[in-house]
């Protein structure tokens, strides 16, 4: 069964069957990753460009590993060596690269909607590796995969996303994907970091971390960026830690085991205390491993779709 869409631009509107197919396909690639020789010839002869207009070590490495393990030819293009500084537009950069006969583009970009734009100006298959504060679909897919692996299902679980929701692409993709898969969703954070009207998507909002913990089966904790202080989004990291950090002490107050996730990189002892990050109920390292399998699945499904 092929995917309905030619590109993976986001998870909003992606049907349940497609998500299911990606997660199921990832299961078989996950098995490949456990082999001594972690390489399959599936995308031999295909050329993939990783266009990263924003620095991102782990997503780029994860994609590159996934591409190489599928035997694709890989070209990396990162912002530092980009021609953006020479005043070239995204359209021109992408069309120039496409003129060299490439098959797929994986793009990270600071502008919301950049992946959609790219899909309108070039013919290659586009995978969105994060566009502004819009979507980061492969992150949400690997999060869903990790949840399913741990809990056996996604349906009916209560997932709370904690932190800077306003500036997060991870939050929106998780909300769209998890909702499609039947989870219940909440966000928690200071009011200044939760975008207005988000409840209209059909989610809960908490401004108190203890209430959020009480409600949740799973906490997906986002990185807090220090720069946000500059525009008065919150007073200080110290205050944030005191009132919003997920700590062992707070988790112990809940009379249940709560799964902890984080898309990384972690600010230890800011949004997440170290003992929680490294605990048995933390999925953080599995998320990283599953990320490679998910990206292999997406690349395979889109790259071999005729």
């Amino acid at each position, binding site marked *: 069964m092929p995917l309905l869409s030619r590109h993976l631009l986001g998870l909003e509107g992606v049907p349940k069957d497609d998500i299911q197919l990606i997660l199921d396909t990832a299961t078989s690639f996950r098995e490949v990753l456990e082999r001594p020789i972690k390489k399959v010839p599936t995308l031999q002869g295909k050329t993939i460009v990783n266009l990263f207009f924003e620095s991102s070590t782990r997503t780029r490495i994860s994609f590159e590993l996934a591409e190489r393990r599928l035997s694709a030819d890989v070209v990396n293009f990162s912002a530092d060596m980009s021609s953006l500084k020479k005043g070239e537009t995204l359209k021109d950069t992408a069309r120039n690269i496409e003129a060299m006969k490439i098959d797929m583009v994986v793009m990270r970009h600071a502008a*919301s*909607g950049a992946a*959609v734009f790219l899909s309108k100006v070039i013919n290659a298959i586009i995978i969105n590796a994060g*566009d502004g504060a819009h979507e980061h679909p492969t992150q949400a897919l690997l999060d869903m995969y990790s949840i399913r692996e741990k809990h056996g299902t996604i349906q009916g679980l209560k997932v709370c996303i904690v932190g800077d929701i306003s500036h997060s692409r991870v939050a*929106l993709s998780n909300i769209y994907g998890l909702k499609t898969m039947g989870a219940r969703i909440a966000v928690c954070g200071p009011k200044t970091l939760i*975008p207005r009207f988000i409840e209209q998507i059909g989610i809960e909002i908490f401004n108190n971390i203890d209430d959020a913990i009480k409600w949740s089966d799973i906490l997906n904790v986002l990185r807090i960026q220090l720069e946000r202080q500059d525009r008065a989004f919150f007073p200080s990291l110290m205050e944030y830690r005191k009132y919003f950090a997920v700590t062992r002490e707070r988790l112990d107050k809940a009379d249940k085991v709560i799964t902890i996730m984080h898309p990384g990189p972690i600010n230890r002892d800011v949004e997440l205390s170290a003992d929680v990050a490294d605990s048995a109920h933390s999925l953080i390292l599995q998320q990283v491993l599953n990320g490679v399998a998910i990206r292999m699945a997406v690349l395979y499904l889109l790259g071999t779709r005729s």
Partner: protein
Amino acid sequence: MKLLLKNGRIIEPSQKKDFVSDILIVNGIIEKIGSNISEEKIDQTIELNGKIVAPGFIDMHVHLREPGFEYKETIESGCSAAATGGFTAVCCMPNTNPPIDEASVVNWIVERSKHVDGGIIDVYPIAAITKNREGKELSPMMELVDAGAVGFSDDGACVENAEVMRRAMEYSTMIKKPIIQHPEDISLSKGGVMNEGFVSTSLGMQPIPSIAESIIIARDVQLAEYTQAQYHAAHVSSGKSVEIIRTAKKKSKQVTCEVTPHHFTLTDEDVRSFDTNTKMNPPLRNQDDVEALKEGLKDGTIDVIATDHAPHSFDEKQVEFMVAPFGIVGLETAIGLAYTELVKTGYLDIYQLIEKYSVNPRRILHLLPISIIEGEKANLTILDPDFEWVVDIQKFKSKSKNSPFHGHKLFGKAFAIINNGRIHFVD
């Protein structure tokens, strides 16, 4: 040159005139109005079959881009777009390079416009309120008026400093010209690319809250009351702004405002396409705001429809939404959108439409009223209100084609304009 218009429906809202008649125009002057005019040696006879003959329309908010940005638009191409759109006059905004903040630039623009198609379009410059539109020091307002400026605005930039705005208003009362504000509190709108609402949240786009506009208007109407200045709010887009202006108008006749056709036609839902032709400032708001704008037009709170015609080149708009410049062209879709969205739907009657495109802006700008009577200069917009057409950006006379209305089916179009002894037929 003798021109005979047969069977035109002459509408002049200020005189409550509405009747079908022939009009004889000789060398740009209305010589005779009456039924069955038969005259020797007519150069051109035009059968109007009941098309509307209205006082010439003016778009009081246009960016002609010249001098400085001739690749987007020139005075010539902008005037040509105005003529096609059914306007006999435009006001051009001062965010040119150099900006319209000294008399020589005003003179230059007016002079240049006279050579476009025999000067059929009257171009009235709006000069900057402050030098270089920086919001700090006042421009030489008296000198600018003497050169031909008809009002003041830093359009594109808001006069943010309340003290500067107060002094600009006080100064303007000596020369009786409107201060036209681009209402935008930058501290609230900074970095934003679309209206703050459910759509911006679901697209992860940096939002511009509507209060960024209404907060400045709330302040400005108090300053206007305090200084007794004439104040006009440009491109009002939110229900809250309409509400504030409605209240202010109960106290003062010196407060007026305008709305653009796109703000009463589209909403932020249209941004979901990430089409950069839905990016403008102020941004497209929500359905409640659109309703409030239409109500404001209906009850007279909103005096004027003006397009904020903002040409940008194709390549400038072929970029990521975040990077794209704000603004769309509007001259050539203005009448069709207003007729389709407002008259066809019953919000306005045809008289009100003509008031908002002709009578009111001329009053605000202290331009001579247009009378369709014998002995007066012929300054006319001839409309075919039932004409059904589909917007094709490739047919635009404007140098730029950045319109979100390509392919839209509209009703109502200009048939011709007559001004300064010239006639221009819209094809």
